[in-house]
């Protein structure tokens, strides 16, 4: 009786072991083995083949386009996400709650559906697209369309990271800065930004990961033109359908490498933010 009272609910040894075993088995089957397989497949024909596969003209173009899209998407969503988080955490206005819910729409909608909507709206026969076509502006089946859908799909990441943190930190420090005569820009740069720095980096890393890896929405609006509108994920699919297995895995290994690097940066950012928060409530006399 005395010893049993130390057990919490669900803390029986057999239950614990079963759960751990299930978690390990599932992670291995679903995560670890496929990841290892990508790299073994990519290296199966040796270093030389891997380098020549990646050095392929079309693959290089796909890498370039993917990086270009990410380079445009990330800064735009960084500014947009920060502004949005600032708006909903620092001001009270009618429709604020609705706006917070709307931020999640890109998460809730399937990317393919998002792509189709953009196609319907901005395509040559679309509502806005036909008007733009009169001025010789083509958005769909070219890089601007890819950037647009990528922005749509990735826009919640930064705001999602910042909103809970900014809510928790409250407005007092900013109010203090205002009473001390700080201008809006100085307040943001010297007070707000240092407090949200790591969450912001985390959001950017996630945005970048998704921007590089997005397939569904991009595949609808890009038109898959090899050497023109093919991003890296689309290129993997294309190579695979050409029965160029080695080429497909070489490109896939690049994406996987980016993902692993992203996770590492995300880990560091999370750790730094957690350390900042942990330091805060300590209210003791150092003497």
């Amino acid at each position, binding site marked *: 009786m005395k010893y049993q009272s130390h057990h919490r609910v669900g803390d029986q040894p057999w239950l614990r072991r079963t759960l751990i075993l299930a978690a390990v088995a599932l992670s291995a089957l679903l995560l670890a083995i496929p990841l290892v397989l990508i790299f073994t497949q990519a290296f199966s024909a040796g270093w030389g083949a891997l380098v020549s596969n990646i050095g392929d003209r079309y693959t290089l173009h796909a890498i370039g386009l993917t990086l270009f899209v990410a380079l445009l998407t990330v800064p735009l969503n960084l500014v947009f996400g920060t502004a949005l988080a600032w708006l909903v955490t620092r001001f009270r206005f009618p429709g604020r709650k609705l706006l917070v819910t709307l931020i999640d729409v890109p998460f809730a909608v399937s990317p393919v559906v998002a792509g189709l909507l953009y196609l319907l709206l901005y395509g040559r026969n679309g509502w806005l697209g036909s008007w733009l076509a009169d001025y010789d502006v083509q958005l769909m089946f070219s890089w601007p369309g890819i950037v647009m859908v990528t922005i749509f799909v990735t826009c919640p990441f930064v705001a999602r990271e910042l909103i809970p943190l900014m809510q928790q930190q409250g407005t007092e*420090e900013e*109010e*203090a800065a205002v*009473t001390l005569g*700080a*201008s809006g820009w100085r307040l943001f740069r*010297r007070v707000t930004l240092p407090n949200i720095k790591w969450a912001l980096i985390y959001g950017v890393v996630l945005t970048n990961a998704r921007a590089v890896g997005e397939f569904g929405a991009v595949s609808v609006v890009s038109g898959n033109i090899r050497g023109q509108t093919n991003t890296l994920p689309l290129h993997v699919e294309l190579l695979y359908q050409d029965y160029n297995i080695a080429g497909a895995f070489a490109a896939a290994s690049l994406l996987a490498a980016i993902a692993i690097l992203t996770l590492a940066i995300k880990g560091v950012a999370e750790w730094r933010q957690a350390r900042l928060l942990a330091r805060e409530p300590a209210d003791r*006399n150092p003497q």
Partner: protein
Amino acid sequence: MSIKIEHLNKTFGSFQALRDISLDIPDGKLTALLGPSGSGKTTLLRIIAGLENASDGRILFGDRDISRLPVKQRNVGFVFQHYALFRHMTVAQNVAFGLESLPRNQRPPKTEIRKTVNRLLEMIQLPELANRYPAQLSGGQKQRVALARALATRPDILLLDEPFGALDARVRKDLRRWLRGLHDEFHFTSVFVTHDQEEALELSDQVVVMSQGQVEQVDSPTRLYANPTSRFVFDFLGHVNIISGTVSDGWLQQGNARVSLPGVSTSGDAQLYLRPHEVHLSVEPDSRACLPFTIEAINLIGAEVRVELRPDGWDCDDIWEVGVSHSEFSRWQPQRGDRCFVSPEIGHLFRNGDNRPQPVTWP
């Protein structure tokens, strides 16, 4: 610089936080805004600072209308209840922030700023903590840094929102004394918000008692305590003993309790308010009153012995408290459960439906 508030109103949606506030805050004095939570005192302070906008009404600093000026241009120092120090800056950087935020043509040179910061850190007696971060300080130290930071730009007016609310009793007392000293030395106009009546009475030159978004009474601490003008102020400031009953022929009666009311000629239902130090205890009733009690508890700690009394043969909402000097207590040696009588010296009579008291004294 004096502050004048004229017909100020503030509503949040359908909730009216402040109702037609008009107030004069004298130059160079410490004024307390005292009231229970939800009385609107913090809202009023934030409106004075410009952190919140009034729905209508005017605020003047001296004879300048600043109602429409942004916070930056009001030249006020603000101290927050939870310090609001910049957590990623050192103590010295925190204190320097206001000076570094000045427009370029008013900003002192770097060496000057460093000198001012050092002087302020001397003033708050923490020069050795200049390079610490806020997380490494105790609550009392943080609040002193917050004060130094607010005073760095030499504001005309210092506003403090429950400045000692988050500190423990001992530190609070030290800091209170220190602030009083600082104020006596520099004579800035200060307004501070508190829900602690003791703090308000001890620290301020003028107390503004607020309740439900309205000003109940504005007075010096002494006058406020001696002459509360409403039931609310009576209840809020210190303990008060209340007997309600019916007045007829110059006596207030309820059950087997009766009190004479010299000089009272009206009749009807009324409540008599008696401060714990304005009554005395005895073993027998006297000609003034017959208020029988049983002794419920005795508290020996403090300058006086505090005796808690339960009415015997009549009713009241709250237990009565009476102060007895230690010498009298040791002479009399009452025990818990003993029967005793209260005799009034000064009383305040509220007739039903009337919010102003009528003073009663016994010859």
